């Protein structure tokens, strides 16, 4: 079956050029922190780069500057979408099939007489509360009929119904909330002043089955410990780890590899050799194997393993610093 949806009044592009698009300059913000937005090209944006932004806890404000709103003038009057004295509304719209949710930002009222000058920029914004978005969402500028005005005789295609949707004036920005980006299972907890600085928490039955996620295996850092601040010293700089954190990380990785290898025996060596990338979420065993492969770790004994993880981490840190 092939379908074509029509509209009872004229909709975009109407008398605008077929390829007309408002030019959008998006900025992503959140109330208390920088959500770490990054343009990946092709209108796709990701969030969370070097940021604590978490869609469950933090809101997201999308602000878009538009710089050719004046070009909408032909939409008013004969051949356009609304009467010459009508009011049109433009607003940012969030649509996300993954969130099962759509939302409109506050609209901007446009009249023929009150259109901004050619060089004037117009800003629209859209507020997405915490806990409301997941997966992938699209942001576009939508056009609605605000007030129909008085239609001229002889132009029956003009919109008469207040609120009718007249089409998208922009391309769609794709905002990626959830993807398949790796996360290290690290958590902060209050383990008491006398508690350990860090510990490994495990809740797996079979490391080949359970995913490498903090519900099943985690590096738990003790917020109450006197050395806690030395784990996350902001002065260490963007995306840099403090020396203490590097050492904790090395110990934890060595411990994980050791535990998984001890539990699985020769099966683990098979997983290390099997370099096939998995489509699904990687298991704990696959993560441990990935450490061994990436760091060329020596697993022949626990003490050799601990040393080789440290050497690998030092190499990694030097590599990443060199890239900056």
């Amino acid at each position, binding site marked *: 079956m*092939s379908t074509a949806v029509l509209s*009872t009044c004229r909709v975009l592009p109407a008398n605008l050029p077929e390829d007309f698009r408002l030019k959008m300059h998006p900025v992503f913000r959140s109330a208390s922190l920088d959500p770490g937005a990054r343009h990946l090209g092709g209108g796709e944006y990701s*969030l969370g780069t070097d940021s604590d932004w978490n869609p469950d806890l933090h809101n997201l404000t999308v602000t878009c500057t538009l710089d050719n709103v004046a070009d909408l003038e032909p939409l008013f009057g004969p051949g356009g979408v609304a009467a010459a004295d009508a009011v049109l509304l433009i607003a940012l719209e969030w649509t996300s099939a993954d969130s099962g949710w759509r939302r409109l930002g506050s609209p901007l009222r446009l009249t023929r007489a009150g259109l901004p000058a050619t060089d004037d920029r117009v800003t629209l914004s859209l507020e997405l509360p915490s806990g409301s978005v997941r997966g992938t969402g699209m942001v576009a500028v939508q056009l609605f009929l605000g007030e129909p005005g008085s239609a001229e005789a002889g132009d029956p295609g003009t919109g008469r*119904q207040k609120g009718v949707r007249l089409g998208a004036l922009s391309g769609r920005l794709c905002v990626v909330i959830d993807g398949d*980006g*790796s996360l290290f299972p690290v958590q*902060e907890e209050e*383990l008491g002043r006398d508690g350990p600085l860090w510990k490994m928490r495990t809740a797996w039955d079979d490391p080949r089955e359970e995913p490498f996620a903090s519900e099943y295996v985690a590096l738990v850092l003790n917020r109450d410990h006197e050395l806690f601040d030395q784990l996350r010293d902001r002065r260490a700089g963007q995306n840099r780890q403090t020396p203490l954190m590097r050492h904790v990380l090395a110990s934890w990785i060595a411990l994980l590899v050791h535990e998984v290898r001890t539990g699985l025996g020769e099966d683990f060596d098979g997983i290390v050799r099997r370099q096939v990338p998995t489509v699904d979420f990687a298991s704990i065993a696959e993560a441990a194997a990935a450490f061994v492969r990436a760091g060329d770790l020596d697993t022949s004994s626990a003490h050799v393993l601990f040393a080789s993880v440290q050497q690998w981490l030092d190499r990694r840190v030097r590599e990443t610093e060199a890239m900056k």
Partner: protein
Amino acid sequence: MRYYGLQLQPMQESGAFLLRAMQNEHMPRLDLLVRESVQNALDAASDRRAGGEVRVAFQVKTHATGSVASVFSDGLNPEVLRARYPNGGKLLEIRDTLTDGLTGPLSFDDVGADGDHGNLLKLVFEIGRTRSDDSAGGSWGLGKTCYFRMGAGLVIYYSRVRHGDGYQERLVAGLVEDETRPDRLQQGTRTGIGWWGGSDDSGPRPITRTFEVRHVLGMLGIAPFADTETGTAIIIPFLRDDLLPAEERDEDGASLRSPSWCSSYESYIKVALARWFCARLDNPLFSTGPRLTAWVNGTPIRRRDMLPVFQAAQALYNRAVHGSPGPGDYLESVNVAADAVLHRAVAPRAILAGAGPAGHVAAALLTAEQLGMGEPENRPDPGMCVFGRSDTTPPYRPLVTFMRRPGMCVCWEDSTESRGWAGGLAGVPDNRYFVAVFVPLHDRALAPSDRRVQAAAPVTLEAYLRSCERADHAAWHDVSGYRVIERIRSNCGRILREFGSRAAPATTVAPAIRMARNLADLVLPERGMGMDGRTGRPTPPGPSPDKGGGGRGRAGPSTPALDVLDVRYVEHGMEVHWALVWGTMNPQAVRRITLQVDSESGPMAMQDWQADGLGTFPFRVAGAGLEPEAAAIVDIGSEEQGGVVLRLKGDRAPVTVRGTLKIHFAPGAAGTLRPLLMAGLAESVRENA
């Protein structure tokens, strides 16, 4: 009393075998004994109704070796006995009353035509035989072997039963010992198994003459049943001295602090009674049978005498069963906030016949003060009360127990694994303790879909769970092929995990997401080990190598495709200029273009609109035409204003047909509705093809 040694025969069990038969070496022996003996007493209750009572009295005392030696002089080696117990021994008596006692035939010769062996034969002379009713505690008939493991292997059974219009006393003894032991008590035995009873050549049977019974009781220092009492006393002389949990030591060999109740058998039994029967002990609200009243060395164990964690468990049981707290509810008495208590139905889908839950779970979050761990009570922590070892670092592991109809805790579980009863809950915040009780609805029938259930009458959940217990009743394991317990446990686990984690304030556990991202950038592959969005959209799954690459390239014949070329608006309507790609599929078949309404649930045709009573269809076809070159080879016809049909005039099918369609909007009806054109093969023709 006369000795009857068991002769060695084919398939004959030996003493050494029976002593291992119970398959449980991980539970302290006194716990096993309390569980088994109280369960036997409850199974024998005279009045099985709720609101009744069953009494069980434990008595620990010393006895002389000589008095036992004189009663069992026939068959017992007195030298070995005196060598092994030069200073006498300790004796345990477990006496139940308000029970039926050891009823039934006195020997196998007396078994009637109905084949009923009765309680006496089953308990004293048979192994692996069990009570037939589903509500009974036991399922294997092996639990009774635990009596032989408590002492030298000698067990005396004394009972008083209703007999005709009066009463009959019965006394018999059994001995099970390792027949390979050089210092065994029986002189001539190859099986290690023997009985003492009346002097009759037909085989072992209890003595029933009152003066004989009373003589033996007198030698052992046991009081007879009196008045209208019926019941059973199990007497175990020469108790071993290792019935308590082994003393634990740290790496340096220093002994770890044992709880105070490990100082004597009496105090340990008091705790064990509460540990396993907290739901039923002194609980007038117990719902599936009489309540249990227990004494230890003459002291009654009342609800308030139980350790706080067990009082809390009883309160949770009452909530699970009745949905609300009863009088004197422990949780209310220590002011547990309403939001720290949970009561929920556990309702896994598709395992039970009919609608409704499989049971109920109740849980509570308790502070150390609410568990009496502060001054002045200084009670040990729940881990110590239940397992005998402290859970020293918060968050404390969750404690979950569950029970069948007899009300005995099958086990206490503190698993933090995702498949455990607490669903992987690692602990709760604020240094609180998590206690939960699950009680199944015993009379629910299993879903008839299960292949093995079909043959027999509907199997109840209780019967199924009973069949899933091992001899020690210490766990439920699904029968192979079933997933009833697994489904109940995972459902219960999800409820408990949500309850426990919901209580977690956001500040206590934080995902530290920036660190999670930065550490991942340092040591993990960019993608595949998380669901973060910072790397952009997920990589779409690659083509599966085993499916081959052909799929899309070899598409079948094409179907008709409609394109709207232009729209012109007129008064109360529109004129649509369209193009239809005819398609190669079944080219002779009629093509149809229908006018529908775009709706939230998809396109809606005129017939559906009218069938739903929505009034006048907002759009109708007011005219249709073809461009001249199309009109030469295709006929166009109207379809009752809901669309048009296109039919070939000859054999030659066009590539594309262009035409126009006039659509009229019903006055006032159109509003924000949108018309939609749908093109395809006419269904009737497609069906014939």
